[in-house]
């Protein structure tokens, strides 16, 4: 089959590789029809995620048809159209039984490797480094999906494959970001990053009752999308001091919830601290750039909630613990719990509360994926998220 293989920093190649086969009884083989590229893939592309090998198949947002089903699969049969969660849960362990699928005890075959970094292993993720299991990824013609009864969901009549591809990872991540805020209605929510994940946080915060949504980014067309599609007020962090502006926009109270949808490669917002983080990241002294998290801690109201959905992998310096402590902030974060949300997001889509495909701005074929990475990375052609048609 053809598959997108990570070669090195900034090099992804489509190559011929063997087809996957059923290995375990709960597996299905998916014939991938649609997939996409995530901000997390950009972290791989930029070489800031440890544990990648030359030739690894990447991608974690699969939609397709069941080609073959293992002997213990109960929910799916050959020919079913399904969307598959990027995060792999076994469905049986303590965490999966609590719907905390991204903390699954059992789905990471490289537990021995990952626990050296995080003490306890976390869930496997398709195509997302050997630390997260070394599973082949979804930017390929076929994909072996383990524990398919847990992670694969039949796509209801009335939901397009384009919509479904956004419900494998980006929308559930955004939704979980809003969910972790514990909104009761009427809150002011600020979202750093107006990429696909951030835009889904904004839409979800509205669905869950936030009164005011404010987007922070520096890419004009993305801020425009936030205004037009999500009813957000917008702030360009290169034009204003974000913390002061947010304090004034909330008449001295500060926002109730601050959500990071940027991750460890966030651009500097302050010339000095930004340069400090970039240099440290470049020489690997500090793996992750932390200025968005620092800014959220500064800006948040006392007793407010900080939610981190952008991905971090190792260390961040100069963490303003004193401000966080004295303001009594709550922190929520993590990889998203896909299977907890997918059916619910299908329902919102069917009810017409949201059309998740709004973010798919550019379309490519699998063979064109190296170019798709460049467009998404360089934010050309007003790209928010790409759709990759596989077959």
């Amino acid at each position: 089959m053809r598959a997108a293989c990570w070669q090195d920093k900034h090099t992804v190649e489509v190559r011929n590789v063997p087809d996957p086969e059923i290995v375990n009884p709960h597996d299905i083989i998916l014939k991938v029809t649609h997939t996409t590229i995530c901000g997390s893939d950009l972290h791989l592309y930029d070489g800031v995620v440890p544990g990648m090998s030359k030739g690894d198949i990447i991608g974690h947002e699969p939609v397709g048809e069941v080609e073959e089903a293992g002997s213990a699969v109960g929910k799916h049969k050959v020919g079913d159209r399904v969307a598959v969660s990027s995060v792999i849960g076994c469905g049986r362990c303590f965490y999966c039984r609590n719907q905390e699928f991204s903390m699954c005890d059992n789905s990471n075959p490289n537990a021995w490797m990952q626990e050296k970094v995080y003490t306890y292993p976390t869930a496997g993720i398709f195509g997302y480094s050997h630390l997260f299991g070394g599973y082949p990824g979804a930017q390929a013609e076929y994909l072996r999906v383990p524990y398919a009864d847990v992670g694969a969901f039949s796509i209801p009549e009335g939901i397009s494959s384009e919509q479904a591809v956004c419900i494998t990872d980006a929308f559930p991540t955004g939704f979980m970001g809003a969910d972790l805020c514990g909104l009761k209605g009427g809150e002011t929510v600020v979202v750093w990053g107006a990429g696909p994940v951030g835009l889904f946080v904004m839409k979800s915060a509205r669905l869950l009752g936030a009164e005011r949504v404010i987007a922070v980014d520096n890419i004009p067309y993305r801020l425009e999308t936030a205004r037009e599609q999500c009813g957000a007020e917008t702030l360009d962090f290169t034009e204003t001091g974000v913390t002061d502006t947010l304090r004034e926009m909330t008449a001295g109270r500060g926002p109730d919830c601050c959500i990071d949808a940027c991750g460890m490669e966030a651009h500097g917002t302050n010339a000095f601290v930004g340069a400090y983080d970039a240099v440290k990241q470049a020489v690997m002294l500090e793996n992750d750039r932390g200025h968005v998290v620092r800014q959220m801690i500064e800006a948040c109201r006392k007793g407010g909630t900080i939610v981190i959905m952008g991905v971090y992998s190792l260390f961040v310096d100069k963490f303003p613990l004193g401000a966080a402590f004295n303001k009594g902030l709550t922190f929520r974060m993590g990889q998203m719990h896909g299977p907890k949300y997918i059916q619910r997001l299908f329902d919102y889509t069917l009810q017409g509360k949201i059309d998740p495909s709004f973010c798919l701005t550019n379309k490519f074929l699998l063979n064109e994926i190296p170019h798709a990475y460049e467009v998404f990375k360089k934010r050309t052609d007003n790209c928010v998220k790409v759709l990759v048609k596989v077959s």
Partner: protein
Amino acid sequence: MASRHRYNVCTKRSITIHKSPEELYHAWRDPGKLVNFLSGAAEVSVLDDRRSLWISDIPGKGCVSWEAEIITDRTDKSLSWRTVNTTGFGHTGSVHFAAAPNSLGTEVGLEVCTRITGGRLGKAVAKMLGRSPEDYVSQTLHNFKQLMETGEVATNKGPSGREKAPVEQCGQGGAL
């Protein structure tokens, strides 16, 4: 009997599995089940009720074989064994099962004692290669938990565009 002196490095780890001590003890007592989760195990033949012959792919050592002989056997509680006639990875081992608090299942403790030559340097090298005795013990426990909780051992077996590293074929079964 292997002396402590001979097997100079002991590694102990534990894990909690959402099954009863009885189920877990019986799975470990049955070489036909054990072969599915013992890290690297490729093949086993049962010699008698206490002895079995193993062929295994041990990281850093390649394909080795040994006879395992059960020394103590306390039904539903613990097992211990030693190896004889080894071509590598001579060791002693023991596993304990005890009910976990709060209905969380069973706490399983596994200890393996091996001989690592070259003292501290040898240990450091084994660590650097990424597959030390700790990794063997840890992965065996994770495999055991995966199999008992989900019915299968998690694997990333599948295609890639990586250059094929030469793999030593160990026995007929697929090494985990």
